[in-house]
């Protein structure tokens, strides 16, 4: 097997007496879609925050492409090729879809902060942005302000923004949450189309989607991974059925 892109070892994080992450170790291989499931309050989003650098773990390490990134700030992790989406969609409302995505392209460009060159007319930014917008099926909405998109479109936009970072891994924090059935199916198809090209860590509640998409499933309960493996064996695991699947039906 190839070297994993993302390796978490022994991550611990406590807020006061509450252990939200309790010795989590897992890895994501290149091209693998690793789903992380667990009941509400299991600490999934907190874990994603630690991986993306918005929270510091108390102990443990995060290795990305062979480098220890545990102490790096979010922007340096992003520059290293670790992209993320948010559980509550996070875009720039007053910028157009194209500008939102071009922002990501810009972050990887040679002069990301050029002071005098017009950004809106810059083909070196717009061309890759268009490619990402087309990949997520938002081409017709390219000039709409992000704040005016539907919920599912915002999710797709976030994924497009992540793609422009030319990421080695993408963290997806509940991309299907709050999205209607039709848009949900479109998003699942989108994730399916990205599968194999990027290492992805998918936090998701929608079991149907998880078992359809994932190569590996890990189950997080009270900050601890109680099971990990291919979808079929995780589904069959009695501990999982008791702790999680049983209670959610």
């Amino acid at each position, binding site marked *: 097997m190839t070297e994993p892109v993302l390796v978490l070892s022994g991550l611990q994080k406590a807020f006061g007496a509450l252990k939200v992450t309790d010795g989590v170790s897992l890895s994501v291989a290149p091209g693998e879609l690793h789903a992380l499931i667990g009941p509400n309050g299991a600490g999934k989003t907190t874990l994603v925050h630690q991986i993306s650098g918005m929270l510091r773990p108390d102990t443990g390490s995060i290795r990305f492409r062979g480098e220890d990134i545990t102490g790096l700030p979010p922007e340096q992790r992003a520059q290293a090729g670790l992209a993320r989406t948010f559980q509550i969609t996070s875009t720039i409302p007053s*910028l157009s879809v194209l*500008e*939102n995505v*071009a*922002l*990501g392209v810009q972050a990887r460009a040679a002069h990301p902060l050029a002071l005098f060159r*017009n950004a809106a007319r810059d083909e070196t930014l717009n061309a890759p942005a268009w490619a990402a917008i087309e990949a997520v099926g938002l081409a017709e909405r390219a000039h*709409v302000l992000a704040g005016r998109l539907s919920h599912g479109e915002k999710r797709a936009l976030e994924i497009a923004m992540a793609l422009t970072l030319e990421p080695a891994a993408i963290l997806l924090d509940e991309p299907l949450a709050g999205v209607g059935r039709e848009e949900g199916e479109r998003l699942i198809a989108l994730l399916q189309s990205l599968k194999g090209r990027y290492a992805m860590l998918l936090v998701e509640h929608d079991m149907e989607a998880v078992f359809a998409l994932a190569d590996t499933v890990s189950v997080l309960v009270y900050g601890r991974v109680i099971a990990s493996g291919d979808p079929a064996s995780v589904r069959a695991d009695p501990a999982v059925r008791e702790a999680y699947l049983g209670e959610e039906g």
Partner: protein
Amino acid sequence: MSLASTAAAPRRDALAGRRPVVAILLFALLALLPVAVSLGLPSHWLTLVTRAMIFGIAALSLDLILGVGGMVSFGHAAFVGIGAYATGIMITEGQTEALLILPVVLVICALFGAVTGFVSLRTRGVTFIMITLAFGQMVYFLAQALSAYGGDDGLTLYERSTVLGFDLFKNRIGFFYVVLGVLLACYALVSVIVASRFGRVLRAARENATRVSVTGFHVSRIRLVAYVISGMIAGLSGFLLANQTEFVSPAFMSWPRSGELIFMVVLGGVGSLHGAIIGAIAFLVAEDVLSGWTEHWKVIFGPMIVLFVLFTRGGIVGLMRKLGIARHD
């Protein structure tokens, strides 16, 4: 308002083709003012509008950080004051050459901006407002303590600056056009910056700093650069102000001046650069008219600000948009 209706979206950015109609109109009208004065408009207007344009430069620079970058600085008058004092002190010491004064003004303002910005930008929201206010007061008290240069009473200048030895600033109409030229140049510069890659990140960070940082940008460093640029432009307006009034005093940077600059920006319409200039002109004209009526003009002006905040949104440029005069963003 949105461009959603254009079904087959053109493959270029919507912003690319915009023409700043209002701004062109504004500068054309300003350029014609001396003509109007020669045709009989009271010459008092020439002085008033020159002063308004100088404050327009300061308001424009504040709009870059406040409107575009979302940093509510309540200490912006400090930069104007520093620019004015650096100018006043150099002229008093016998150095009138603008090409020597200006670099000094810009460097001092950049340094002050870098140091105070570095500390202030560690905070956000209410704390940022309070800290910028406090740093502004610090400079105010410092100027009061400068007994060698007038202290509390201020410093009267007996000469204006020269440019390469020429008395370019002596003639009122000449000075008017110098100020207009500087205003135009600053407007162009800030517009270019706002439309640049840097400006896009600055705008994005105003709305969603977290998103910008996980996209790979160091947000507070970008804000600091904008803060320094803004301070330097405000310093430039201080240089012009000292030359126009032939007097500098600590009052230039007292905190009500900073509040007035904020009001100019909001009056014109936050984030619309020509709005800041219109706001400055409207403010100074209103001040001039009201103070002509009564010495207690602030009793009228204060409630006007309160009512303006409570009942309008988007300032003068927003109002023009509603009436269809200016285009939407």
